[in-house]
């Protein structure tokens, strides 16, 4: 995993590919130095003070547009073809380069600052038998460092010993993966015996052989060789850089990876750069324009050759060019380059910068939106990527996770089935007692209970009090089989740190029913069973993972019995049961289906008594396998499988996960916007279906076949994906799925989620959005065009991988229908106008070519060419691109079908591009030929002539600026004060600069740079010139107005209708205001009102 540029810029870092195995010897710098491992100095900054300019310029000129303008600049320095002064290109180019460079420099400055701050953090290093203070950057691989409570870990270190018993230590990994719960790490017993004895630690000379640097945060494979013994090392013994030590007074560790080779640093850096479809289209169009430019150059060059032969040849007497230049063909060749220079403005240099500015603006609006701010968690929405905004207006498929995304991920233990009996309030309203009035169970018998816990069936407490062994065993299992960390702040006040809320809910349930999980050490678990402390010896934890879908613990109870407790997905557990359990399995299975039908999350529980001899033998194999360097995972998996057989079923739990606020409304609104929502969940079919119903995704009126079909499909997907079938079957699956209104895929693994997204992305050419909240959604979020993270309960990994994040699913509606739609609309209008403007501006030269002997004479003043794009016309279109709203936000949400044009890509496509460039060409034609006609025989009102090149230039330039300003006025639907200011301001600035550049003062200083002296004054005080400008403007603009009016009148789009409705409503409202009556306008609304749940959180 080579981080793209980091490896390149830092000479110290080595390509990881070269290192196959890492050997590190503790306290032996000489030995370790042989390998040239990276030291702990980090450098994320790209530039230094001296290298900034060359490197930054080099990078910028790698962009096609910038390189193109550099070539132009060089062409302009050749006097024979230089049709424009060098400053016409260099001013915009420098401006664009400067903006980018300033942005890069600011970013880099902050990187420097943070690097500096991180590199100079203090760390305590054991050097020559003494603990000395050292800066972080001076820590080397193999050093032994001391960490104290609440300190950041300086590098990836192997935990040797700690202040806590058994060499335990606690860390918080918020900076690493965003999760805030405590995690526990444990040192090897042999090393934890070293304690804080500096002398012993200084003598420690173990050698670690381990994997080369990589970016896997949750894996580490290595072996420690010490005193002729071999100890296996895994991630549980590593403290990674970026973690913070918690609840641990001190600990010692040995540095394994330092600086850029730490897992944290290996993980930063963008792995993938997402681009929008508009980006790709833009690149194509720029290439087309480039081709068009060359074509025009060729046409004009041929024209020049012919003209030189027929006319120009006779004119030489006045010019007396040298012989070389007088060859017509050579002259044509030179003219080609001259015209490339003149017409270069069709390739818009400021396009990319402007687009970036717009997107940044739109991202800020997302960040600032109070209606996407969740006050309960104090979380505003965040656009983490600033390059995808307009694509939010084109989404066709949403892939949503269920848990934590559609639901709140606040797990509540609500039901259970123990030995064939169900407990827990029946949610179906069969009994006359309203469920809310069912009294809560009184847990006052238990002093350690959690007061927030509610349970509505007292028969379970009765069973506990009667000491039914299986019920007791059930809760004992819940209290033992988990990875929760307890934190006892004061006596009896327990707080559980759970990585998954399900586990927290189950352990809390066990706690309230009298099986209180109180303390944990690596080798023991202490419970208070009905008030009595009982300590279990913890012999093995058989981890949960997405493939196994179960976890088990092996414990020895105080009576000395060996027990395996297992909990996991029902199908998985049922496959591994003792045959004698069959009857119980059927009853439990029925209960499970019942639970799932109510939308509850279920787990099956089972236990097993273990045979002492068999266990000993298994344990030996386990130890051997866990020391393996190769295939450790597979070998452990096989061993786990071996022991998890012949289980005895205990029962099942059902956890309720409530839907988030506004989810059904959001889904129905998005469905109306013709967005297809696919729910991808790891849950059971029944659970998923139930959620589907409660989210309005499935309705009773959808016919039965449909639902069957869906069930069929759900299975299809899981099997298809698992076996990776041929492409034609994938296509069938996709076709079937796309016929359906709703698709729910259940029992999918994280990888399959990503595969489903990939499948749609590949075959449908549609924009996909994936939304999720957990680590299992990361792959899907990264695969989709747009990834959205819910900043919720399950940690931050999804958010860190996402492009946009917010706290509640219902904000998605606003993100897409309001922000996305606006962004798309703005960006498309912006691009249309931009291309139009540049064509109208530039092609005037083409027409002039036919009159000036194709000599590449410019029409405009050179200063006008320099400033047109960057000063006279840039701000109004930027203001439009940032602020424009065709339909206001209420109407955007009220008419979800306004989202359709974005999905169909109607607002900016190749056709649209042709239309707007054609408009530009026509405008340039009118702009040239009306003044031409008028000037051909014009004189001033005082008789002196005005048909000179300079007056003509000023007239055309003024017409052009006015025409494009009127056009942007037409394109602006939402005139804020800023728009007014920029549009009127641009016009004012145009005239101000025009007169300044034509003034006597500036001419007296630089006569040959400002030869237009007096032209503006003498031309613009002529009525005829203003008549020409007026006529040009009217002729350029009126056809556009007529076309637009006809289009809205004859074929109104949805948007036109919404605008119409909006105006009507406004008019009505004004009427109402005048009449001072208050009436509800519900009748004004269309039939499909999309209910908007209270968007305000307060």
């Amino acid at each position, binding site marked *: 995993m080579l981080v793209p540029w980091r490896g390149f810029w830092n000479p110290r870092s080595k390509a990881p590919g070269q290192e196959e195995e890492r050997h590190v010897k503790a306290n032996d710098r000489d030995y370790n130095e042989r390998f040239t491992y990276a030291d702990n100095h980090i450098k994320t900054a790209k530039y230094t003070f001296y290298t900034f300019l060359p490197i930054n310029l080099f990078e910028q000129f790698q962009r096609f547009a910038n390189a193109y303008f550099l070539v132009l600049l060089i062409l302009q320095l050749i006097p024979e073809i230089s049709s424009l002064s060098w400053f016409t290109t260099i001013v915009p180019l420098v401006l664009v380069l400067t903006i980018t460079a300033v942005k890069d420099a600011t970013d880099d400055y902050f990187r420097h600052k943070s690097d500096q701050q991180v590199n100079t953090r203090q760390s305590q290093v054991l050097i020559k038998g003494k603990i000395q203070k050292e800066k972080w950057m001076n820590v080397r691989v193999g050093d032994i460092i001391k960490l104290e409570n609440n300190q950041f870990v300086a590098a990836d270190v192997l935990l040797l010993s700690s202040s806590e018993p058994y060499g335990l230590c606690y860390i918080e990994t918020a900076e690493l993966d965003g999760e805030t719960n405590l995690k526990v790490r444990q040192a090897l017993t042999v090393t934890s015996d070293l304690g804080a004895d500096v002398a012993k630690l200084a003598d420690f000379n173990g050698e670690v052989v381990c994997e080369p640097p990589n970016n896997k945060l949750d894996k580490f494979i290595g072996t420690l060789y010490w005193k002729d013994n071999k100890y296996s090392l895994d991630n549980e013994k590593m403290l990674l850089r970026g973690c913070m030590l918690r609840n641990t007074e001190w600990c010692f560790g040995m540095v394994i990876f330092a600086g850029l080779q730490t897992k944290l640093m290996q993980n930063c850096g963008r792995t993938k750069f997402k681009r929008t479809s508009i980006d790709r289209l833009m690149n194509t169009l720029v290439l087309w324009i480039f081709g068009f430019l060359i074509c025009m150059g060729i046409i004009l060059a041929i024209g020049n050759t012919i003209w030189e032969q027929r*006319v120009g040849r006779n*004119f030489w007497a*006045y*010019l*007396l*060019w040298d012989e070389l230049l007088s060859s017509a063909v050579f002259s044509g060749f030179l003219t080609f380059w001259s015209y490339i220079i003149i017409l270069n403005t069709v390739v818009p240099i400021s396009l990319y910068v402007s687009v970036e500015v717009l997107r940044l603006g739109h*991202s*800020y*609006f997302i960040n*600032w*939106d*109070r*209606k996407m701010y969740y*006050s309960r968690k*104090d*979380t*505003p929405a*965040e*656009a983490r990527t600033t390059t995808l905004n307009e694509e939010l207006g084109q989404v066709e498929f949403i892939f949503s996770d269920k848990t934590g995304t559609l639901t709140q991920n606040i797990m509540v233990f609500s039901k259970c089935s123990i030995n064939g009996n169900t407990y827990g309030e029946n949610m179906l309203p069969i009994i006359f007692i309203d469920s809310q009035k069912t009294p809560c169970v009184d847990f006052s018998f238990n002093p350690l209970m959690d007061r927030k816990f509610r349970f509505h069936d007292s028969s379970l407490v009765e069973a506990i009090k009667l000491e039914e062994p299986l019920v007791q065993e059930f809760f004992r299992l819940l209290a033992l089989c988990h990875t929760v960390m307890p934190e006892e702040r004061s006596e009896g006040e327990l707080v559980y740190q759970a990585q998954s809320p399900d586990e927290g809910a189950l352990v809390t349930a066990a706690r309230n029913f009298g099986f209180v999980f109180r303390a944990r050490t690596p080798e023991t678990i202490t419970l208070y069973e009905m008030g009595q402390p009982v300590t279990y010896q913890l012999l093995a934890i058989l981890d949960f993972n997405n493939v196994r879908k179960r976890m088990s613990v092996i414990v020895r109870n105080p009576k000395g019995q060996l027990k395996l407790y297992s909990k996991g997905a029902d199908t998985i557990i049922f496959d591994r049961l003792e045959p004698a359990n069959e009857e119980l399995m059927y009853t439990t299975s029925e209960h499970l289906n019942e639970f799932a039908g109510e939308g509850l999350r279920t787990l099956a529980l089972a236990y097993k008594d273990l045979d002492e001899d068999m266990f000993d033998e298994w344990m030996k194999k386990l130890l051997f396998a866990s020391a393996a360097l190769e295939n450790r995972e597979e070998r452990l998996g096989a061993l786990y499988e071996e022991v998890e057989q012949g289980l005895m079923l205990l029962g099942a739990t059902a956890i309720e996960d409530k839907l988030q606020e506004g989810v059904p409304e959001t889904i129905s609104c998005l469905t109306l916007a013709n967005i297809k929502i696919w729910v991808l969940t790891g849950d059971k079919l029944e659970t998923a279906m139930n959620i589907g119903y409660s989210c309005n995704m499935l309705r009773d009126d959808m016919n039965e076949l449909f639902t069957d079909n869906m069930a069929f499909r759900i299975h299809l997907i899981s099997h298809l994906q698992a076996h990776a079938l041929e492409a034609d079957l994938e296509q069938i699956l996709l076709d079937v799925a796309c016929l359906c209104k709703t698709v729910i895929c259940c029992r999918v693994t994280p990888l399959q989620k990503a595969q489903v997204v990939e499948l749609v992305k590949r075959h449908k050419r549609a924009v996909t959005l994936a939304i999720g909240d957990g680590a299992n959604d990361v792959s899907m979020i990264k695969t989709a065009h747009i990834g959205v993270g819910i900043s919720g309960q399950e940690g931050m990994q999804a958010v860190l991988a996402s492009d946009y994040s917010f706290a509640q699913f219902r904000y998605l509606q606003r993100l897409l229908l309001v922000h996305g739609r*606006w962004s798309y609309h703005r960006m498309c209008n912006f691009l249309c106008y931009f291309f139009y403007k540049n064509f109208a501006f530039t092609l005037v030269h083409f027409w002039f070519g036919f*009159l*000036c002997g194709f000599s590449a*004479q410019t029409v405009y003043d050179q200063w006008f060419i320099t400033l047109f794009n960057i000063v006279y016309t840039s701000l109004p279109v930027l203001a439009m691109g940032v*602020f424009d*709203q065709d339909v206001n936000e209420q109407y955007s949400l009220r008419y979800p079908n306004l989202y359709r044009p974005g999905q169909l890509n109607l607002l900016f496509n190749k056709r649209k591009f042709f239309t707007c460039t054609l408009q530009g060409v026509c405008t340039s034609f009118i702009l040239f030929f*009306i003044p031409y*006609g008028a000037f051909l*025989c*014009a004189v001033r*009102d005082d*008789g*002196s*002539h005005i*048909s000179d090149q300079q007056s003509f230039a000023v007239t055309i330039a003024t017409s052009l600026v006015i025409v494009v300003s009127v056009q942007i006025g037409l394109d602006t639907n*939402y005139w804020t004060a*800023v*728009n007014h200011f920029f549009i009127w301001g641009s016009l004012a600035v145009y005239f101000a600069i025009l007169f300044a550049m034509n003034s006597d003062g500036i*001419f*007296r200083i630089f*006569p*040959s740079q400002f*030869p237009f*002296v*007096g032209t503006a004054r003498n031309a613009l005080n002529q009525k*005829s010139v203003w*008549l020409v400008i007026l*006529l040009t403007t*009217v*002729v350029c603009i*009126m056809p556009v*107005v*007529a076309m637009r*009016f006809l289009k809205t*009148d004859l074929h*109104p789009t949805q948007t*036109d*209708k919404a605008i*119409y409705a909006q*105006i009507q409503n406004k008019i009505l409202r004004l009427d109402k205001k005048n009449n001072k009556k208050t009436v509800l306008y519900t009748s004004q609304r269309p*039939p499909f009102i999309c209910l908007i749940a209270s968007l305000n959180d307060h």
Partner: protein
Amino acid sequence: MGKVRADAGPFARRPDNSAFKQQRLPAWSPSLTPYTVLPVFYFLALVCVLLGVWLLITVQNTHQLKIDYTDAGACATCAEMRNDPTKAKMNCDCVINFNVPKTFQGDVFIYYGLINFHQNLRRYIKSRDDDQLVGRKNSLKSPSSYCEPFAYDENAVPIAPCGAVANSMFNDSFTLTYHPPAGAAVNVPLYRKGITWYTDKNVKFRNPSTNTTLQQAFQGTAQPPFWQKPVYELDLDHPNNNGFINDDLIVWMREAAFPNFKKLYGILNRAHTTFSYGLPEGNYSIAINYNFPVQYFQGRKEVVLSTVSWFGGQNHFLPIAYLVSGGLIFIVAIVLTAVYVKVGRSGKNMEE
């Protein structure tokens, strides 16, 4: 990315409730409704037609007369002489008679016109030195390289004014004579000064500063190769109309935008009683000192007599363009109205 405020209250990260950040800035949303579009169309149609009519009437009241003298009558011999390299430098005069059918009332302007002369070629336009023309001493002695090959003469003496534009200056001269029905012929008096833009005469063109004579100021420079006299002797009648501020030079140096153009030569001096109302109808003759060769490039030369109106000289393009545009806008307005009445007014297609 949002602004993180220093205080860490419960709503510390809540975005500001400002109209700007919430995209609720008060705004005007214009839209193309029939109530705005149709009146605008009718109004513009009316404005264009009215302007067109007004302009047309004004134009009808102006007069213009063009006399192409390239090879007309007596000038044919001169044209041939200019064509013959051996006689190219010889002086040639010719006279052309013409008739003014109707009195030219008011100020009358006399222009020379050139057809097919490309003053708008890029290399031609550039071939001048504004630094020199504004009288800078350095540029006088070392003209800009843009002037090449008319920067220095064969003896490496700098040329003033340098460049192709100045070199190709129009150098025919005209004398207009009125032949009244009774009485002797009257020389038509012309103002040959005050025919330039004020800014050109006073800002853009300046002679090199000197305490002595203009000739000394231009010492060490050569005249352009095509010229017959040096720059300080362009107007022997008016000593202060010489050098770079010579009106004819200034007029010529303002390059025309198109290959066919006319430039002001003189203005009728109405102080003379015969011409106090303008140019009376009748017979005229024009004596031409024929120097400027146009045969090389199939060019034509003409003299234009014209009166002007409030929007300039005789210009038929503008009134016609206005009338046509006004008419078209009117037709479009009617079509739009029809469409609106037929389709749009009911608002049916605006409903869902």
